[in-house]
């Protein structure tokens, strides 16, 4: 294969700089020692990271996001693992329709989902509750949990299971001792990707969150609507750091290209 010419490399360099610039600028501004938005020119300071401690609503929102992401991804897996096993192993009538239904939250705009859930949970008397947030997040992260579990279950070697069956294992034991350990990397990656999706969701959650159940993205969004100051950049820098950590773990555990390849199919 031929090499890239100089023009192509210049294009590539500009492209990469533009892709990274907004993220980099947020992280840089977060370290400003000034009381206003500026790139740190006279020294770095952790001042705005310390200021976060004076805003309990950000701290509270962080814990809400963390709990919501962890719990909803777990619940989604409880539903997604059996469904993935069924779709991977059986050819049955309605299989394609079921798979399409389970992946449909990727296709439905989150603003529509937010409205639908707001209407639904308000009339069910759960408006603004943490329970409503969990259920709504289970739906939006379900496709990611399903997809990675499905990939693991499809690629799994069935002969180990057959051996276990021939030795008398059945039902729950078979699942717990043989099947689950074999698909575990897919399940854990599914959980991690689902967690990131839940942790980052703004559009749907902004409709459902009430004071007390505001997630971090919602809190940040409402704050930015009023004014943009270095405080929100330091909060963003923390969020970016958390996501990067999860990203690196995902990459080590599963391979980021495989995770993202699943995400690229969303529109199909």
């Amino acid at each position, binding site marked *: 294969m031929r090499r890239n010419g100089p023009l192509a490399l210049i294009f590539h360099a500009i492209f990469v700089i533009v892709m990274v610039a907004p993220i980099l600028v*947020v992280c840089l501004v977060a370290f400003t020692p000034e009381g206003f938005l500026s790139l740190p020119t006279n020294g770095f300071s952790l001042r705005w990271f310390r200021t976060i401690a004076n805003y309990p609503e950000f701290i509270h929102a962080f814990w809400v996001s963390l709990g919501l992401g962890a719990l909803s991804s777990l619940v989604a897996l409880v539903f997604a693992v059996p469904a993935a*096993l069924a779709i991977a192993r059986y050819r049955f009538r309605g299989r394609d329709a079921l798979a399409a239904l389970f992946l449909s939250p990727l296709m439905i705009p989150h603003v529509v989902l937010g409205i639908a859930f707001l*209407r639904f949970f308000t009339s069910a008397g759960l408006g603004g509750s943490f329970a409503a947030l969990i259920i709504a997040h289970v739906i939006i992260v379900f496709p990611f949990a399903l997809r990675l579990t499905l990939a693991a279950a499809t690629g799994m070697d069935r002969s180990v299971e057959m051996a276990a069956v021939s030795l008398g294992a059945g039902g729950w034991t078979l699942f717990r001792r043989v099947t689950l350990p074999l698909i575990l990397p897919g399940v854990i990656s599914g959980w991690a990707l689902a967690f990131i999706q839940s942790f980052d969701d703004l559009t749907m959650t902004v409709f459902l969150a009430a004071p007390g159940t505001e997630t971090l*993205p919602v809190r940040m969004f409402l704050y930015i609507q009023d004014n943009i100051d270095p405080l*929100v950049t330091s909060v963003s820098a923390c969020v970016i750091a958390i996501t990067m950590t999860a990203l690196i773990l995902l990459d080590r555990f599963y391979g980021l290209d495989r995770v993202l390849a699943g995400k690229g199919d969303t529109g199909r």
Partner: protein
Amino acid sequence: MSAVAEERSLRAPWALTAPALMLFVGVLLIPLAMTVMLSFHDWGQYKGIEPVFILKNWHEIATDPYYAEMFWRTFRIAILTTLLTALLGAPEAYILNRMSGRWKSFFLLVILGPLLISVVARTLGWALLFGGNNGLVNKLLMSLGVMRSPIPFMFTETGMVIALAHVMMPFMVLSVWAALQRLDPQIENAAMSLGAGPATIIRRIIMPQIMPGVLSGAIIVFSLSASAFATPAIIGGRRLKVAATLAYDEFLNTLNWPLGAAVATLLLAALVLIVVGSNALIERRYAEVFR
């Protein structure tokens, strides 16, 4: 297979998918149906929502030019964003694909990684870069001599398109990248050995083969841009409304839920039609690629 085993294999998939199916019917399909019904309800400042069947909201959207303008702006921004990501993302995917192993995976990570970083944080970055007349982008463009006087990016459609294109770019690169993986490098070499120049190779060999990838990337980018919320809300401010931010306002500020539900239903219906329609077109046009 015995009759018992056969019956088990018929029932097993349904038993395994039943919990998820019930969850989806109960808390996805029913709420969506309720939203469509809500769009036909009446609403008044003092009486609130009245569960009657009227076409008032739909009539208002169809006749008030405000909504036509808003939907036209939404789709204009989505189309421009799609074009920008295709024009820049497709060549970048091609360049990436020609890099050697280690650089390739490094830059792929750099370009695709932002996909998982909070949209609020990424848009905040653009708000900082744009920031008024003496924002970094304006300073840079003026010092490079691209333009004389600063142009406004915040609270404009230009700014929205740039920030949205940045948010959506990974989807386009990923989609073209996937198409490039199916491409046989030997065809390129064959064309070269037959005397084709680089321009001819790109136009006659590469373009036709990655076009399905560009188009399916375009569908993803378009549908996500047309329903985007965070970026238009932060860059566009309170005046420059798109469908998602208007629905948000109707629901959480004006509290006219039926009207907001009608806007959301229309957005969903338009997107489903566009996505399904163009998918069908692409699959017919490029049937041989998908086989």
